[in-house]
């Protein structure tokens, strides 16, 4: 009886988890495409001819939980070791979402420089990402 319940839970988790993930990736890609024009770097390069008018701190964050199926796969994987693909997509989603939120806050800026990404785990199978950087506004 318990085993049956576990199997049903895993199946439900797998279905909902992959639907949510697919939708999320789709929306991430759409928004990333929209921001393609804006330079966004992790160093502090500002062109020598650029006249900076203003700078501002921008941040974005995201907390994402893994579904039970992913946790199950991850647990299975850590017996033998190796790459846990199920978790890779989770961290990828969280990071890209946080970066996107940060860049959306700087949507009128000419570029975002000196971006840093901060990662931490809150509880079991929940990841938390903060992306922060400096939005640079150039003189027109």
């Amino acid at each position, binding site marked *: 009886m318990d085993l049956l319940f576990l199997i049903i839970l895993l199946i439900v988790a797998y279905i909902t988890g992959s639907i949510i993930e697919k939708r999320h990736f789709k929306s991430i890609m759409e928004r990333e495409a929209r921001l393609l024009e804006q330079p966004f770097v992790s160093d502090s390069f500002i062109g020598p001819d650029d006249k900076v008018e203003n700078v501002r701190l921008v*941040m974005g964050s995201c907390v994402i*939980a893994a579904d039970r199926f*992913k946790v199950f796969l991850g647990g299975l994987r850590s017996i033998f070791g190796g790459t846990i693909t199920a978790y890779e997509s989770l961290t990828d989603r969280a990071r890209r979402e946080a970066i996107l939120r940060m860049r959306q806050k700087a949507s009128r800026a000419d570029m975002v420089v000196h*971006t840093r990404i901060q990662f931490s785990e809150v509880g079991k199978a929940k990841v938390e990402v903060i992306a922060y950087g400096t939005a640079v506004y150039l003189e027109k």
Partner: protein
Amino acid sequence: MKIILTTLEIVPNKAIIEHYGIVTGSTVRSKHVGRDLMASFKNIFGGELKGYTELLDESRREAIKRMMQQAHGKGGNAVINIRLATSSVSAGASEVFAYGTAVKVE
């Protein structure tokens, strides 16, 4: 209180005229039971934990505000080289820590 915040080592186009050393701000928050309950549901089906994200946003803002106040108290008008750090103190409580260098620019 207008303070320029940046993750750069400089404030572009502005000369730094005085250095006040490091300023910090931190806050520890926990989510309420309702949010925690929702989070455990989400842990079955997957997806974003909006309540946690909001909480994180709030605490980040608070930490930065405290850092700004400290910089203001020292007489600075900008904080450069800002870094953020998070850590989970216990289950359900997390700390956000912001630090940077307070300076005075032209």
